[in-house]
């Protein structure tokens, strides 16, 4: 079967051929010798030398117990010198040895090839002619062998899969309800009692925690647990994780994140964000009504992330140590960049909408641990002032965003766009919410829209539309819903209530408040915060019913944050904790 050179006897007698073959054989033999010696040296390095080193270590420890033993000390010195000498010698040996080995292999091969190339290929005795029968049989054999190999590969794979069944340690956590078969800690459980981002874990302004106070008064010092000064201005809202409250503040020159102890209001630490290369930067032109810290920070418990109107983002650990910071570039935003961060597991979601036309905007996910960009997706929208929100659907988690004109959904794992619906226009600030399977977004001054989140992909403008309803729509505050009704609130205090099922207006109530903060729903009550520090508590029902008014003495723009039994209000100067005073 192999190539044969039967008719080359004459050539083989030539001195050149003989010489080349001889060289080849000699080189090959030398190569084998080198390989054996190298193997011995390798064995010594791997086995003998470490044993010696261990022995030396033992001797040194012995010496520690009897420091005056000069003989032992002398022995140690001797051993140490020996070991080091051996090691260097062997390394030198291996280095030269490998060069010899490679050299001999190459020489052997080259001589051999050269010698062989002198020979002429001889005719091969032809085998039987290729006939269809043979062809068919070969094809059959091929299929058989390929199938057997496949089965073997499959078996190996199956074995790996079966032995990989999670051990006890892995099964501690509950199975994931998401589409993946991966066992996991479900994010919804992790954030159930937290307020990790703007308007809560799901960005819908619904507080699902118990014992939230509904009566307080600063003048009478009623139910004010503590009040702490906030050193820097900012319209961003506080966030809460366990026993810590975080908020941001910034001026043209400073960008800071503050961490307060939720128990007593003590300022635990202050983190400064100033990424490399931003030191001497010219401050961007930001409208006073937006300010440099309108973006609410976000946290997943172990990392707290803040972004500012300058596009500088940074992340701290619980102790206030900066983990990473980056300058994403000052976004081109008509009133100043004000979008809040969203958080999902280890991902910090940044909706970075900018420019007066589409093309510059994108949405990114950063790894909260190290700031690595996990994915980034271009967005077909110009600058917006809405915020991304995380929602949980029966098919898994989604990121919702609003812009002009698209309301869109993304996969938080990959950043892939899931669907989009066109309904908005011009400058959008109110953030979308998900209520009873409907995405509710609103067009300022004009209309309220609802889209079914039925997992259809692509452009669902027509196919997923549930209803739209005209009304006096706000231009700042986001809507809130209890799953049956949805409320909107204008700056001038116009509270409108719509039926979530069909979008019909249920009532309109004019409140004597100027409102910048978005309304929130606590249990069956609406909490509506006025700019003057007044908060109206109203029944969340089909008719308007005011249950009470509470007041603090400072101006408020930020939306409240919650912890079990506690509410946190940020005024222009202070952070209030409201709850039962022990």
């Amino acid at each position, binding site marked *: *079967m*192999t*190539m044969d050179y039967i008719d080359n006897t004459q050539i083989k007698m030539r001195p050149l051929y003989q010489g080349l073959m001889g060289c080849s054989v000699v080189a090959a033999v030398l190569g084998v010798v080198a390989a054996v010696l190298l193997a011995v040296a*390798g064995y010594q390095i*791997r086995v003998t030398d470490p044993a010696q080193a261990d022995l030396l270590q033992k001797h040194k420890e012995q010496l520690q117990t009897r420091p005056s033993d000069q003989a032992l000390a002398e022995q140690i010195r001797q051993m140490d010198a020996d070991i080091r000498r051996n090691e260097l010698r062997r390394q030198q040996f291996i*280095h030269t040895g*490998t*060069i010899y080995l*490679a050299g001999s292999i190459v020489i052997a*091969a*080259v001589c*051999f090839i050269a010698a062989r*190339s002198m020979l002429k*290929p001889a005719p*091969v005795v032809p085998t039987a002619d*290729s006939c*269809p029968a043979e*062809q*068919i049989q*070969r*094809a059959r*054999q*091929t*299929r058989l*062998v*390929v199938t*057997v*190999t*496949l089965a073997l*590969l*499959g078996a190996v*794979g*199956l074995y*790996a899969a*079966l*032995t*990989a*069944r*999670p051990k*006890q*340690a*892995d099964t501690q*956590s509950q199975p994931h309800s998401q589409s*993946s*078969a*991966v066992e996991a*800690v479900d994010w919804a459980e992790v954030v159930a009692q937290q307020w990790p981002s703007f308007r809560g874990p799901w960005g819908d302004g619904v507080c699902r925690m118990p014992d939230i106070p509904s009566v307080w008064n600063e003048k009478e010092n009623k139910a004010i647990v503590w009040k702490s000064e906030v050193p820097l201005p900012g319209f961003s809202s506080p966030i809460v994780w366990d026993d810590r409250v975080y908020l941001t503040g910034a001026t043209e020159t400073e960008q800071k994140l503050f961490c307060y102890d939720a128990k007593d209001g003590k300022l635990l630490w202050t983190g400064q964000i100033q990424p490399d290369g931003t030191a001497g930067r010219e401050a961007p032109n930001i409208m006073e009504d937006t300010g440099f810290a309108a973006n609410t920070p976000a946290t*997943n418990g*172990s*990392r707290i992330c803040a972004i500012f109107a300058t596009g500088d983002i940074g992340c701290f*650990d*619980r*102790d206030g140590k900066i983990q990473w910071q980056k300058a994403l570039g000052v976004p081109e935003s008509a009133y100043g960049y004000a979008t809040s961060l969203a958080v999902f*597991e*280890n991902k910090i979601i940044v909706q970075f909408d900018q420019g007066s036309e589409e093309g510059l905007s994108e949405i990114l996910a950063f790894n909260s*641990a190290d700031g690595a*960009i996990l*994915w*980034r997706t271009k967005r077909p929208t110009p600058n917006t002032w809405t915020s991304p929100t995380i929602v949980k659907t029966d098919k898994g988690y989604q990121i919702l965003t609003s812009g002009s004109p698209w309301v869109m959904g993304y996969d938080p*794992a990959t950043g892939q766009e899931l669907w989009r619906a066109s309904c908005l226009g011009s400058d959008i600030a109110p953030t979308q919410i998900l209520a009873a399977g409907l995405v509710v977004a609103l067009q300022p001054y004009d209309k309220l829209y609802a889209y079914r989140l039925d997992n259809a992909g692509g452009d669902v403008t027509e196919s997923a539309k549930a209803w739209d309803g005209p009304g006096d729509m706000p231009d700042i505050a986001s809507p809130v819903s209890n799953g049956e009704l949805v409320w909107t609130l204008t700056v001038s205090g116009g509270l409108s209530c719509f039926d979530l099922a069909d979008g019909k207006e249920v009532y309109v109530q004019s409140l004597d408040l100027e409102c910048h903060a978005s309304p929130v729903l606590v249990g069956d009550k609406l909490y509506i915060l006025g700019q003057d520090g007044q908060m109206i508590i109203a029944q969340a029902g089909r008719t308007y019913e005011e249950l009470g008014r509470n007041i603090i003495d400072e101006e408020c723009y930020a939306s409240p944050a919650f912890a079990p039994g506690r509410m946190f209000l940020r005024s222009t100067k202070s952070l209030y904790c409201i709850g039962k005073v022990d």
Partner: protein
Amino acid sequence: MLMLSMTAWGVQRFPPPQFESGYQIPQTTTPMPHPPIRDVIDSAVFLVALGMASWLTLKKRSRKWIVGLMLFSLFYFGFFRNGCVCSVGSIGNIALAAFNSEYTLPAVVLVFFLAPLVFTLFFGRGFCAAVCPLGAMQDIVLIRPVRVPEPLEAALRLLAYVYLAFAVLFAATGSLFVICRYDPFVTFFRFNGNWNLWVLGISFLLISLFVGRPYCRFLCPYGVILRQLSRISRWRVKITPDECIQCRLCEQACPFGAVVKPSKPLPPAENARSKRTIAFLIVLLPILAALGGWIGSAMHPTLARAHPTVRLANRIDAEMAGLVQGQTDASEAFRASGQDVQLLRLEAVSIRYRFWVGGMMAGIALGLIAGGKLIASAVPVVRKEYEAHRAGCFACGRCFAYCPVEQKRRIDQSIMNTK
């Protein structure tokens, strides 16, 4: 003693002294890596070598010259440049760059990955013939080629696809560059390396004495891509550019089993039978793909252990559950750094999820490829003359010397030249 685990930064415990003797504090030296021009030179040499290889295999048609270029490549890309960067290993970088936006692909790697693909699409596998140092290493030591039966060869080639699929999966998830780590000959190129890699390299070399280019044929993940491009290449190596006289002298010439015999059309009865087989195999295709996808995704917990973060998360969980005693270096370092376990778990979960998806994709791809192979084996081929197999031919040029038509052409040519 307990403090030893907290090595991270150390603390300024002893203020640096104020020296009175005029002692100058030395500077820490920082020897620099090789200058960037080396990448440019490497790329240029690589492109020239590719061009040469194409010319030698298609126009010059000389085995001697091909061996010469092969030796040059072996010395330059292998021994001189230590076998790194190489086109085969670049698959890892490419996969990582495609799936990880944080990773910047060095331009030289892109050249090494893309150029052979483009050249192959035009000129066939000249890269394998004379530019790849791994191929050269195996080619020069081939002394007594043993013919691998065709069915076995087809089956073994599946391994290369498996290797490619998993190499991409591991690289894309940022776990490891399998191809680079288990590069068979890099130990030779560096004159250095650990024990296991020496054993691997020497084994491959010994096998290569008798089985032509075993790595190239049965494992090389880059070769798999080149095979497919070579199938449709514009120009490619022929045993002779002139007409085949069916003398059958080249039948045994190729040590890689890439000289294929002519075959006649099947008789009608057989033809119908093979059509039925093909129909059956086409139906089987989606089943194989589904099966592959299922096995691939089910393997994800095992596969994911290739990722250090998952290993660490598993270890920490096992430690917390009391399933293992003591700590590893990694878990100790993790605890000392004060990072959050919950976050680590979440990260491990998202990596496992990526492996779940990736494993499924790899499985589906492998199922389809295997199904495709089965189908291809059932399609009757009609071939009039002896020729170099479109996909399998490494363009090594061995067969030229066996063809009497080619010999005659050469003699004619030399007569023409001397005139």
